[in-house]
């Protein structure tokens, strides 16, 4: 009973909190595919929407999401100027496969690596896929856990809402 109470309270409060405040990107470093290090707050897209998607080479729904969006990406970019940034949480075991996998999949996304989960933890991501949508002020306005075939349509609706 106590557990149920805790759960219900928690969810009620979280829902309130998600509406109540604006949310910016945390100041955390990620690695580039070129061995460099950048701070995630330096992401830019000329005021257009940015989608940040956490994925891993071992996560089937993540790959499904990014593959499905890849087919629509060019159209999305033409219409809204959106940029998709894919953050891979692959650790040392599978990190080396990220670049070859992306190239072989023909993805045009900006990809960064978060091998020890620093950005993942800072953004409250527990399971992947987890997708965030940022508006022109780089504030997080929408997020979604998991991926089901067809979710890209809902994502696009959200992007269109905030595109200028």
């Amino acid at each position, binding site marked *: 009973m*106590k*557990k149920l*109470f*805790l*759960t219900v*309270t*928690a*969810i009620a*409060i*979280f*829902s*309130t*909190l*998600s509406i*109540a*405040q*604006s*949310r*910016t990107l*945390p*100041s955390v470093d990620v690695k580039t595919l070129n*061995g*460099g*290090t950048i701070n995630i707050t330096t992401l830019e897209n000329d005021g257009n929407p940015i989608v940040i998607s956490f994925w891993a080479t*071992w*996560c*089937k729904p993540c790959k499904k999401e990014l593959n499905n969006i890849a087919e629509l990406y060019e159209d999305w970019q033409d219409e809204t100027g959106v940029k998709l940034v894919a953050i891979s949480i692959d*650790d*040392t*075991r599978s990190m*080396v*496969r990220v*670049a*070859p*996998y*992306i*190239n*072989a*999949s*023909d993805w045009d996304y900006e990809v960064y690596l978060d*091998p*020890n*989960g620093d950005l993942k*933890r*800072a*953004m*409250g991501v*527990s*399971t992947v896929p987890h997708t965030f949508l940022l508006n022109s002020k780089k504030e997080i306005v*929408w*997020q*979604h*856990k*998991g991926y*089901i*075939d*067809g*979710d890209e*349509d*809902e994502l696009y609706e959200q992007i269109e809402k905030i595109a200028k």
Partner: protein
Amino acid sequence: MMRKISLTLSAACLTIICFPQDNSGEIHGDFDLNMQSYQEDKLIGAEPADEIILNNAYLNINYTKGDFSAGLRYESYLNALLDFDDEYKGNGIMFRYATYTIDGLEVTAGNYYEQIGSGLIFRSYENKGLGQDNAMDGVRLKYLPLKGVYLKGFIGKSRTYFTYSDGIIRGADAEINVNEALNLESKTRIIVGQGFVSRFQPDINPKFKLPQNVAAYSSRLNIINGGWNYSGEYAIKLNDPIGSLTAEGNNYANGNALMSSLTYSQRGFGIVAEMHRVDHMEFRSERAQEKQYIINYIPTLTKQHTYTLLALYPCATQPEGEFGTQVDVFYKIKKGSLLGGKYGTKISFNFSRINALNGGNSFLNDNSEHTPMFISIKGEELYFRDLNLEIYKKINKKIKATGILAKQSYNKDVLEGKTTYGTVESTIAIADISYKIKKGHTIRIELQELLADGGDGSWSMGLVEYTVSPHWFFAVQDMYNWGNHDLEKQLHYVNIDCGFLSGSNRFAIGYGKKRAGIFCVGGVCKEVPSSNGFSLTISSSF
């Protein structure tokens, strides 16, 4: 404890109300709950839990304001799920920290996670699904003295369940991005790094001389040129005897590990070739050889499989000694070509092979000394071999299909620390087809087959998953051990799962039987006992 939590949450809400439009302070977090019921099931050997239901829950809260951030994590194990070590008992705030950044210097006090290089000498990380959490408690500094030079230093104790290790861990790391530091505009990029870790533990052993400060060093190099990428890391660990009272228990030899990988990728094609050699390289926060003290990470050199039957016999790195190689090839057959079809076809090929070191790992004590050959493949005991091919094709607007064929060899005795099982040879075939019924409604069918003689014989698995975007999923699966040599163990493991996702919330419930097995991520495995019952998962972010 519950009142404390309600108070913390109320305080968080109040803070939000006080600063509604002001961007100066933000509070965010996430919540996870995992509850399972355990009924007795003599057929599959599932033990009932005295508590009937077991529950793990976590709540993370982070507060950020400008260059300052602080946060905590509350963990609750009442009691921990059976696949977790039962030292996880009770409730507590097991993670709290405060960080600030000023003039290029970042200071963290409290708990933190950190990795040096690829983790060969030090990796403090968490993976809740595995029950893995060796967070550090202490102080960490990060500093950028010049462009392209990244320095890190830390000191602390590592977490073991609800307490911290005896040993004091100190570490430092320097990484130089040569192109950035020297302002070179070159097509070739070079990154070098050097890391150091040491552990202090007093010597109370009356019979053997033990080093009190045990050190490990690692050097790494990364060279990138166009589509080519070479990455290598070499680590050594100086004398690290476990502190036994028996002569053969104390190994004073230096440990070492080498990881090397070369990749080439271009549009539509990628190839990866890796090798690693590990020799007596487990590094712990205490001398005692127990898994909760491990503070380094030697990744398993095999493909991380996601399909159940491909991961039925997972490989785990043997830190005392192994030699391994792995090759991956990714290729996309172009759209429009004969084999590619209308949308293109993706092919992934993977081969990995792990074997023992010649004569075992390095050993040194008063009575004997051994150093294995550097490269030795032929004639050494095979630990694991995996050969697999995956083909993915979008057949038309409605149908997508994946086909996999694999052949694996799994040395159950060595990899599970058991006896009399030998090596299990298995051949696996998988078909995964998804069909889009109409907008938002998709049905997916998975058929898996594993043919083997050893272990518990052959298995079949079928899964049907129906999803309705954007909110619902429903799945039924059955794993059938039709090839078990023991007629009584030829059982069906049926599971039903369904869930609801909305925004940043996810709810899932399931019911069914789970087979006992080993669940591995990276080089860390945990044994999962068989179970029969309900499961409930709730996760949320804010």
